[in-house]
């Protein structure tokens, strides 16, 4: 018997030495050991390894898990809902806590999307989602980091986010709205020369009688007062607000006017721009 078993096991460390650095910051436990993540992650295989693959942004592990599940004749819908989406839920939980950052989300989001594609191959059609949304970057503008984040957050939350890419002519946006019937459209622009297209898009939508809320987002030059200077549009402040706005449109049938009024409430945090 060494002292480790004899004496060490009797100790309560709290009376001897406290690692205040760990107390303050929390221990660097593996993401999967986080108690909230533990509650979210499925217990049974292959869902567990699929979700864990997404959690770590490990595309290979995710796809292996998905393929294994499909070979075992599990339903692709179950794999998406019980595996891939659970992994993404866990990622969101860690992001909210400040343990995960943007790049974690991007990597996990990619793994999740590849997994979904694999399932849809077997399914033969697109999987069921909460609803469809359409996102574009203004014509003449290449800056799409913001739009990519919006699309990622929406997909991570179970929306079918149609990504029209950058430098998208107004006509193409209108066509997409007609085709996909989204619950809302998001537009982003960084340049002052290109953001002027937003009111034009709204005008065209109105002309065609397409009453969809439009979320105007963007970098330095797009501001709330600009976005609110034309109808139907709502100023989006942070990319991660988008799914919450989407949920409120979908579940609570919020109109664009209500979104403008209740923005802070809907996204569940203080937003200085709306104060």
């Amino acid at each position, binding site marked *: 018997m060494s002292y480790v078993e004899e004496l060490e096991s009797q100790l309560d460390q709290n009376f001897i030495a406290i690692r205040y650095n760990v107390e303050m910051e929390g221990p660097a436990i593996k993401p999967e050991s986080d108690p909230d993540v533990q509650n979210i992650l499925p217990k049974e295989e292959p869902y567990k390894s699929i979700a864990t693959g997404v959690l770590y942004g490990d595309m290979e592990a995710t796809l292996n898990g998905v393929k294994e599940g499909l070979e075992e004749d599990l339903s692709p819908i179950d794999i998406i809902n019980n595996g891939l989406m659970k992994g993404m839920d866990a990622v969101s939980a860690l992001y909210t806590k400040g343990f995960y950052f*943007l*790049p974690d989300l991007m990597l996990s989001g990619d793994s999740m999307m590849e997994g979904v594609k694999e399932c849809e191959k077997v399914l033969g059609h697109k999987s069921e989602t909460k609803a469809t949304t359409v996102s574009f970057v203004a014509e*003449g503008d290449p800056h799409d980091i913001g739009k990519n984040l919006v699309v990622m957050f929406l997909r991570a939350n179970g929306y079918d986010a149609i990504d029209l890419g950058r430098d998208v002519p107004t006509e193409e946006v209108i066509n997409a709205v007609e085709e996909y019937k989204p619950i809302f459209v998001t537009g982003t622009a960084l340049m*002052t*020369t290109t953001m002027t297209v937003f009111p034009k898009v709204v005008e065209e939508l109105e002309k065609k009688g397409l009453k969809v809320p439009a979320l105007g987002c963007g970098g330095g030059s797009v501001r709330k*007062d600009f976005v609110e*200077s034309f109808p139907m549009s709502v100023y989006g402040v942070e990319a991660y607000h988008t799914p919450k706005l989407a949920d409120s449109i979908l579940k609570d049938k919020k109109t664009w006017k209500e979104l403008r009024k209740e923005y802070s409430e809907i996204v569940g945090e203080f937003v200085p721009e709306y104060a």
Partner: protein
Amino acid sequence: MKNKFGIAIDIGTSGIRAQALDLESSQVISTSITLRHPLPGANVVDHLHFAIEVGRDTAHDLLIEAINKVIESLNIDLGSVDRLAVCGNPIQLSLFHNIEIRDLAYWGEHALERLQVTPPSRDATITLPGEMGLKVNEKAEIFIPPAIKHEIGADALAMLVKSGVLEKQGIYLVSDFGTNAEIALIIDGEVYTCSAAAGPAIEGQMIEKGRLASPGAICDLELTDYGWKTLILDDDLMVRDGDVVDASNGKIISTSTDKIISTGITGTGVIAAFSLGLNTGLISIPKIKSDDHRIHLQDEIYLTEKDIFNIGKALGAFRAAHLTLAEEAGVLLDDIDAVYMAGASGFYVDALKSLDIGQIPPSSREIYQMGNTSLSLARDLVLDPALLDKLQTIAGQMRSKHIMLATSQTFEKIYSLELSLYDQGMPFWMYNEWLGRYGYQKIPPKESHPKIHRIFERDIPELGEEGLHIVKVGSLLEAEFEGCTECLTCIKNCPENAITMEDGVIMLRTDLCLGTACQRCVLACPEKVFKYGEFLKAEENNNS
């Protein structure tokens, strides 16, 4: 015999700088600068947007009017001017030259196709004052240097030529830190360029107490045993000692013997505050740890957390751009032999602080602060007309590759790390871990003994015996709006105090106005009668 004169002009986003030269002796006679650009707006895209909205001719006229004012103040006989040379970025030079600008306003093919825009040639040109509207000897020649490529302008050519790195073996990083930073990485003569939209914070704009490098502006800070010492630009743009203050509450610890009053802070001053704040623990990104969450400097100049975030994003854009260039070119930042900083911001900033906070790679060993290379190239052109052809040859033969940051996957990944850092408080070691995970190089360790070469005392080395004139530019535009109730909401909402009202007539100063990017006056008007375009119509009527 009457003296023959030449005039060198640099049109920058933040103002016009001009110098009169004696063509016989090659001496500088006088220097005039403006502290604002005559067109409304805080950055070059604003100028572009303004020009597109109001029409190219109007924008051209406003610019020329300002240049005329500037050269008038040079105090030389403008009738004896033989040559002028103008340098600047492609947008400014196109506005000056009054050629197509829309190809610079939109990216991708759709907008340009719809508008049927054909990109113009931006090769080296010689034009005449009459054509441009410049009020000088009408037989004088105006030299306009070439752009290297569509995306890389004469301003970039200026910094490359003036740094002398094109002919050298080795790896060099050359940047002009402006609102839109031009950055070039040169590997044995092969040039990789990009332009990083750093945002106006870097020039002191969009900073609550910010202003451009001008008399009275705090341009640097020094840490002393007792507090932070401000360094302030005097009327000749020389750096003078200001007061020593306790930055956490603004208490003056010792007053400067120069008794110089500060009126604002430049981008380089903000960078200095950021660097000192981090080193002393007053800043813990994204927070300022003073009672009122502000950093206090002398004469009630302060910085807010929002200012710090804005400068952080700008610095993040630089660092992400450097990494992207190095990754695209397949070299390590650590292997860069020398770093050249051009422009006023790149001159007045303390290079050690730049290194500290990531404005230049931390591994920079040799740092050259070159000053205004654009003006200096214009000066060279005035004195040596044959240089114009040489520049065209250099531009034509340059092996160069432009990296469009907005469409670069590498930049997107790295910039998202910067956002995580400045917005979400991601620790820096984690940033480095992520670079590793992406398969990119890590941020190199800091060079312990960098050599800094700052040859001149000012960004413009010689002001001439007549010294420096500061010219106020911009027009006062007037408009009357039907239905205006004179509630003054527009005036209250203007962030730049550009609007005044007298007897129902609203007056707008173009040099102060932030232009089409702002429009707070228009958007705030409760009666919805404030029409920005009315000012410009009035302007056209005046001209005709």
